[in-house]
């Protein structure tokens, strides 16, 4: 019997996968087969539909360029922001396109994409750090902001270098080595309120667009969405700024599509999003509204509130928008019950065609065995 189509679930989860599987950081973040196996196993445990074995989104390119890193025993390798690679503007001139097969852990990153793509549920997309975030990684956030204000020509040179000399060659290698022709960028520094809407428009969007357009020339459909709305304080929720952020998202992607990413969307009013998309709906455009379940919310729960948010999201947007949902970067110590609840809710309420009244659908919080018990059962 053919399974009823439903919304699919994927997640960003390197820290969680490493913690749940108990693999030491210095193996998980270096050994591509170990890393991909662990992602595949955890995705199976949670009954996710797709997994993207992306061990890291913000450090590979910077490390490959020669940045000083800190390699913790229990954590993802991270840039040492105390000593950024570009300390002075003249340091930019010393940088060269990395050798993607030799420098840093770039080959590990490539192997993760390649091996992941070969798996049944593995994603078939390349990954890269968005231009603005990569510039932050090279220069540090305070220095880059200062450059934008006092040395705008240098800031533009840096962002152009990042696109033309690092990211485009990297995508080209991803295409050749991994066989991908679609790639997604992560740009967590290019969000509100890290930058204002006008700063995003001036300093991030043009470089994300430059990358996307140039990637087309080498046969890659790249997407780099800037402008996630990440305001932490509920009392500061502001529709004018939110709509500016949505404008940035659309401009950076070059198409009408918005996302409710890492912000507190379980608490923000979803009606505000509908008010924004009204102009598209009135033209008959089913504007996609992608959403994520916030990382902290996923960690802290409770499970029934996670389910309630997922139900509200689907119920609010399904009638007149294309929808899809992912679990944002699952924190290391997240209670697996919360993840099971989220996956089950997306699968249950996301059965297609989406029901008009989700209250009529019966949903029970899943009761699942621990990861270790599940492994034992599987091997038995």
């Amino acid at each position, binding site marked *: 019997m053919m399974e009823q189509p439903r919304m699919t679930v994927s997640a960003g989860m390197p820290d969680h996968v490493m913690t749940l599987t108990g693999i030491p950081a210095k193996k998980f973040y270096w050994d591509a087969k170990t890393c991909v196996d662990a992602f595949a196993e955890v995705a199976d445990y949670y009954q996710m539909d797709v997994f993207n074995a992306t061990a890291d989104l913000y450090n590979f390119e910077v490390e490959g360029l020669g940045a000083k890193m800190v390699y913790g025993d229990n954590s*993802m390798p991270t840039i040492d922001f105390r000593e950024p690679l570009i300390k002075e503007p003249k340091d930019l001139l010393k940088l060269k396109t990395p050798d993607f097969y030799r420098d840093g852990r770039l080959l590990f990153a490539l192997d993760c994409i390649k091996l992941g793509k070969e798996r049944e549920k593995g994603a078939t997309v390349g990954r890269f750090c968005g231009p603005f975030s990569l510039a932050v990684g090279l220069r540090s956030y305070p220095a880059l902001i200062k450059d934008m204000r006092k040395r705008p020509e240098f800031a533009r040179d840096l962002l152009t270098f990042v696109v033309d000399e690092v990211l485009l060659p990297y995508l080209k290698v991803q295409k050749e080595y991994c066989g991908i022709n679609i790639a997604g960028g992560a740009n967590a520094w290019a969000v509100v309120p890290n930058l204002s809407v006008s700063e995003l428009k001036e300093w991030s969007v043009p470089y994300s667009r430059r990358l996307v357009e140039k990637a087309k020339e080498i046969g890659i459909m790249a997407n780099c969405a800037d402008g996630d709305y990440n305001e932490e304080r509920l009392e500061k929720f502001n529709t004018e700024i939110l709509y500016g952020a949505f404008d940035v998202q659309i401009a950076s992607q070059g198409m009408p599509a918005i996302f409710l990413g890492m912000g507190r969307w379980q608490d923000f009013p979803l009606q505000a999003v509908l008010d924004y998309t009204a102009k598209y709906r009135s033209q008959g455009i089913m504007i996609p509204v992608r959403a994520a379940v916030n990382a902290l919310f996923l960690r*802290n729960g409770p499970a029934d509130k996670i389910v309630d948010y997922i139900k509200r999201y689907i119920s609010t947007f399904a009638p007149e928008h294309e929808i899809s949902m992912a679990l944002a970067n699952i924190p290391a110590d997240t209670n697996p019950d919360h993840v099971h609840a989220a996956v089950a809710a997306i699968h249950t309420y996301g059965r297609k065609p989406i029901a008009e009244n989700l209250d009529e659908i019966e949903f029970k919080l899943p009761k699942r065995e621990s990861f270790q018990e599940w492994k034992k059962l599987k091997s038995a």
Partner: protein
Amino acid sequence: MSETLKKLKKAVLEGDDDLALSLAQKSLEEGAQPLAIVNEAIVAGIQEAGELWKKNEYFQSDMIMSAEAFRAAMEVVEPNLAAGETSTAGKLVIGTIAGDMHNLGKIMVVAMLRGAGFHVIDLGEDVPTKTFIDKVKELKPDILGLGCYMTTTMAEMENVIKHLEESGLRDSVKVMIGGVPTSQEYANESGADAWGKDALDAVEKAQRLMDGGKLE
């Protein structure tokens, strides 16, 4: 207020660290009292930045530039202050926990706390647990601030608190945590006394801790 102090306040507010530094120097040369320079210009500038941030008129980029200008100006004026002249609100030792390099939030927290009159000792980033314990013993702060950015390093906060308990120091110091992956829930789980969701919140919580106020 003199023209120079007005300009200095504006430089801190607008986040021009080079200008703030030179105006702080000029204020001293003009004979302004160091304490007046701090209170009327440098602190007033960063506090106004905080108000604009609350009103959504300032973003993180504005705040970090203000914090940098605050730091630059303070470096010039501070050596000229009499001991304890500005640091009356309490003593706070702060650092980013072991394995974590991120310092953006800490830069802003330190500036805002100093602006609120706290004596802040910044231990930097990737600070080993032992260093936190040793510094609490040595400096006897009112508050220990722990920051982190990654969910994998977050557990180190609990470790610091556990070591404070084992060393018999827990009752002598309040612990406040902060950073992207932290939350009030995690503060409760880890045994911290307070969670600062951002720099301004950290100041409010620190003040309440000093007042002996109960924090959830």
